[in-house]
């Protein structure tokens, strides 16, 4: 049996071409209708699968979510939303082998709409998973300056905070600090935001920046105990012990059970009581503090020498030991203490305290972090001495 077309077509080229054109147009319309119906059905099926995938992804069942999103994409292969969610699920599944696939979906989406903030954020997170500071920073910035469908200000701030946290985790403190400065200028008048920024400044070891943000938070919420404690800590680390004492005392008043704040306050008090350069103290008190510091330094030196087995009383002190050298300088400086009262000896306090600070710093380097008065003297030395002097 063979099937043949009926021989209806006239054998004339223009007529044939006309009929072929009509047939092609009819076929085109028919296939168009078919494709439209099929596509609509597929899209409906894809939407159901997508909902399944979303539920799985929200429940952290990433393997199931990936399967559902993949199936949704087979129904609607060009759907950007499905691709984005599949990429997110692939990325969040904690399988390094899936990062490549996630990235390829996201790159395809990015090429289609490079201004899409959600896509850029997802790409930034992939780069962050890979530990690539350069790529992550670029995509986070794209996300910050990109187009958000809803709540753009909050999303931009969150993206910057995420970038800062990533940079801090990577140890890129300078990069983090510059992002923090940008963040600080765009924060809303909200104590929580300033408090969060202050914590990030503190992590970035920018104590002055942290203190400024805590103070902004306290300006909006003066009795916030966490902000008071944070401000005290930042002031303490920044060397502003008077401010630290003020904030820490307020923090303790608000929350007397805060042990770490109590400890920090004690240390702050000790620094303030020990510091001979403290303003608003009499000359006699300054001289007394210097003498006490000088004596404490000698004790610390002797103790450290004992710990490390250095004999400071040996007939021929080891020229290689810095402790011996410090002891020699300490002994040489000791007579100067008696001349502290003389107004003609203006440089003496600095000379005396210089040997004290050197002893505290050197012993801290050799014998470890001190406690009590020695710690206070070490902190004072760090505040007073610049690296160039050392």
């Amino acid at each position: 049996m063979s099937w043949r077309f009926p021989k209806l077509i006239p054998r004339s080229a223009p007529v044939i071409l006309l009929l072929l054109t009509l047939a092609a147009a009819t076929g085109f319309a028919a296939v168009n209708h078919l494709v439209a119906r099929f596509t609509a059905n597929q899209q409906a099926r894809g939407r159901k699968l997508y909902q399944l995938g979303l539920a799985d992804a929200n429940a952290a069942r990433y393997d199931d979510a990936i399967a559902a999103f993949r199936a949704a994409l087979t129904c609607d292969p060009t759907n950007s939303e499905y691709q984005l969610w599949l990429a997110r699920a692939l990325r969040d599944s904690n399988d390094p082998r899936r990062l490549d696939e996630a990235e390829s979906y996201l790159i395809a989406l990015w090429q289609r709409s490079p201004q899409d903030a959600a896509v850029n954020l997802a790409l930034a997170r992939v780069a962050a998973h890979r530990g690539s500071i350069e790529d992550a920073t670029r995509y986070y910035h794209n996300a910050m300056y990109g187009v958000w469908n809803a709540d753009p200000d909050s999303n931009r701030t969150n993206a910057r905070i995420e970038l800062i946290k990533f940079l801090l985790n990577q140890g890129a403190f300078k990069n983090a600090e510059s992002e923090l400065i940008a963040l600080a200028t765009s924060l809303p008048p909200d104590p929580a935001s300033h408090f969060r920024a202050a914590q990030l400044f503190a992590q970035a070891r920018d104590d002055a920046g942290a203190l400024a943000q805590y103070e902004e938070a306290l300006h909006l919420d003066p009795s916030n105990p966490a902000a008071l404690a944070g401000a005290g800590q930042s002031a303490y680390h920044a060397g502003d012990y008077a401010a630290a004492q003020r904030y820490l005392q307020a923090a303790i008043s608000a929350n007397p059970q805060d042990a770490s704040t109590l400890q920090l306050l004690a240390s702050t008090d000790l620094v303030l009581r020990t510091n001979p350069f403290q303003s608003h103290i009499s000359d006699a008190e300054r001289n007394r503090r210097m003498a006490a510091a000088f004596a404490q330094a000698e004790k610390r030196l002797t103790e450290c020498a004992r710990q490390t087995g250095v004999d400071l009383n040996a007939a021929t002190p080891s020229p290689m030991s810095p402790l011996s050298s410090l002891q020699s300088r300490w002994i040489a400086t000791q007579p100067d203490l008696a001349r502290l009262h003389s107004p003609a000896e203006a440089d003496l306090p600095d000379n005396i305290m210089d040997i004290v600070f050197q002893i505290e710093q050197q012993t801290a380097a050799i014998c470890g972090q001190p406690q009590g008065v020695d710690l206070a003297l070490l902190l004072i030395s760090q505040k007073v001495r610049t690296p160039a002097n050392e």
Partner: protein
Amino acid sequence: MSNPDLSANSVVPSSRVTGPRFQTSRRLFSTLEGVFNEEAFFLILSVFIGIFSGLAVVCFRLAIDWMHLALLGPLPQTHSWRLFAVPSLAGLVVALLVLHVFPNIRGSGVNQTKAALYIFNGFIPFRTAIGKFICSAIAIGSGQSLGPEDPSLQIGAGIASALGRQLQISREKLRLMAPVGAAAGLAAAFNAPISAVLFVIEEVIGRWSAGILGSVVLSAVSSVVIVRWFLGSEPLFRIPVTTFKGPAELLAYAVLGIVGGLASVIFAKSIGYLRPRLKRLPRWTQYLQPALAGLLIGFIAFLGAPQVMGAGYDSMDQAMHGQYAWKFLAVLAVLKILATTLSFASGAPGGMFAPTLFVGAMLGGAVGDIEHFFFPHLTGSTGTYVLVGMGVLFAGFLRVPMTSVFMVLEVSGNYEIIVPVIVANTFSYLISRSLQTVPIFDMLTRQDGLILPSLEEEREEAILRVEDAMLPVPATILNSEDYVDANARRVQDSTDSTFLVRMHPSGWNTISRDQLLRLFREGKGEHTLGSVLPPQSLPGLYPDLPLDSALRYVNDYAIVPVVNRANSRKLEGVISRDSVFKRYGSAQTAVEG
């Protein structure tokens, strides 16, 4: 060549033309018809073939997707009863349709198209195209390990053939309709017009011809436009970043080529072994063969490898993005060879292109990962190896070296990997050729009892050239400017019976010893030889011409000069009837030996 059926006189019966309006129309028609000789008409027809094939392939792809969703569901399932039931029951249905409604639709369709070109004057029953559409959609949609490309090729060829027959175009053109439609179908299925054109030229037609090339390109491009219109221009795969940094890495790709070549041989030999044996079984078993193949494939899927079902493009995409470990990739490659061999040998209609790409992709990924393990400094990503692996299997299994290179380039859109692809494909092709003499498509046609020209053999057959039969330059060459008596004296010592004459200012002629002596005896010794010779000159042959071209002269002339292409007065040698036939004789002896 113009077709009388398309002549201007058959447009409208003159009895109907009564008024000035009709006369204007008639003049317009006549003008239009003057434009359409058969060549031009054939080219325009190629565009329509592309459009119709594209529309058919769009429907075919929708049908496969719909079947897959309806039968297997949208979500991939492991350990489900459907994996056994669906391919088995669909196999039964397909077997019934193939045996009772649509005979001649077994297999891929490439050979049937080739047979249409060489044996059946371009005739492919339209029923075959319909049957291929329905049965392939059921088979592939139900999970048989087959691809949609080869059926698309045959559907396109079937549409073109039906159209050509209906329009009663000349036999010569009708014969070419099938490859034109085949290119359109394949281009639409692959969304890759260059590869489709090359495949049809390389495997179906086997020769480059300006006339057919134009039609093939037009149909391929128009079908791709149609497919992209309806289904979008998204590529088959999301291509990952592919890199090729240094020539040293070519060694790694060469290893992939060797492994791919060996896998190609195993794949081809498996099909070559199983297919005829299953065909020889009693007829009643043919009802069950596709069902049993489906059952076994379902079993493979049930055990945890559902990726082997169907064409497998999604799995290739995932392999390209490093979703599978090398062990699983290697297992998938082996299982796909097994599954495709079962499906294809059982007679289920469907193509081998997609399975070939699948096996190549998995093998490429596995080899790439292993190489990375031992040589971590290699920069090629898994995706790069997967892409190159696809080309490797294409070159080794289908034995289409040019198509294999361009297919990878077209699919990836990345020309950076051309060197790795060429290197790997060359190794694969050479290994496959040395271990499997007969290419897969030729093997299948021979199993079906058809003798079609082996295009690979033709392509590589040594061509005899004029220089192969050329004799040395004769010692005595006469000059047309010399007198007859001087020339007669020159030939006295020669043993030759015929002499070449160098004519002035150009050209060659011959004269026999007897003719020359007769002229001398007739008292024409004082004449120049040129003045007494007949005016026509000998044809000049060149050493690089095919020896066939000498055949038309050697019967008319005792010797024919072979001259230099740069200087036609410079003689390179001569050929004679004896030297030509002697050369053919020795070549035949060498072939038979």
